[in-house]
């Protein structure tokens, strides 16, 4: 149903129908921005990625062929743009590795709800890129296993492996915060 609705709206948006354009933006921009924000940990950069993703989408609309769901395609474009930016960051900061100690739940953090939320957000961002993306797509955005696997361009088994490792890391940090408090 949503797929059919997408196709109809894509066709109308490609013809410049303002209502279809608005509908696509309202439906998909929160997910794209959320994914980019979790991946990049920078709101301004995440907004840039969101804009770039939609500009590419508008260009692709006239020749759109429904080989994949529009949502899947859009998230994949956004994710690749995030990978590009993360790669450029690493290139511009040679030798500097993420400081894992900063993402752990310190004893005083565990006592404060807001700080715990912040610590979990930091811990997600500190995960390896693909684990962070898998967790964001599945646990935070509720994408289906098959769709998340397609966005990440991996098998469902590989997606499970990424998710399990991500959750294991986060759970260890949560438990460490609790026991240290």
């Amino acid at each position, binding site marked *: 149903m949503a797929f059919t609705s997408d196709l109809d709206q894509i066709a109308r948006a490609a013809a410049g129908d303002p209502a279809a354009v608005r509908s696509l933006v309202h439906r998909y921009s929160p997910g794209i921005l959320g994914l980019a924000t979790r991946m990049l940990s920078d709101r301004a950069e995440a*907004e840039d990625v*969101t804009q770039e993703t*939609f500009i590419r989408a*508008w260009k692709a609309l006239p020749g759109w062929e429904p080989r994949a769901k529009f949502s899947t395609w859009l998230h994949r474009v956004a994710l690749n743009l995030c990978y590009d930016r993360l790669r450029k960051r690493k290139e511009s900061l040679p030798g500097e590795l993420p400081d894992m100690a900063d993402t752990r739940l310190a004893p005083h953090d565990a006592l404060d709800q807001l700080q715990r939320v912040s610590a979990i957000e930091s811990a997600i961002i500190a995960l390896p890129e693909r684990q962070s993306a898998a967790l964001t797509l599945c646990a935070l955005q509720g994408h289906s296993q098959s769709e998340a696997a397609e966005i990440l361009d991996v098998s469902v088994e590989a997606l499970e492996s990424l998710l399990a490792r991500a*959750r294991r890391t986060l759970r260890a940090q949560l438990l460490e915060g609790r026991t240290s408090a």
Partner: protein
Amino acid sequence: MIEDRLFELIETWGADPDAYPEAERAGAKALLAAHPQRFAPALADARALDAAFDRLPGILPSAALTAALIASAPKPAGAGFRLRLPKFSAWAPASGLAALTAGVFMGIMVAPAASAASDTDDVQALLEQALGYDPAALSEEIAP
């Protein structure tokens, strides 16, 4: 479903069996129901993490970003050259009636003068035809 697989599912997808792959959901639920104590610690850990995810604030686009995304979309063909006519509204008949009234009034005021001018011209033409020359031009020629 074997126990090891259920532990994997809990570790991967969390405490809610409805989040597990559809093909394994029923088996997982049956095993959980059969041995609740065995999986309780793993489920508690998974629930803690699920709850932490639920507490994360949503990320929503600002109005400015939404507007920029919409503005970057393709425009309808010929949108830049569209002639924008004012919409028909209630005052249009009134303005039409006012224009008609003004036209009739102007016509009444101008008609006598136009008619007088027209009469003079007709007399002049008739004299030229009858006499074979223009008397006004002749009187100008013989004037000292």
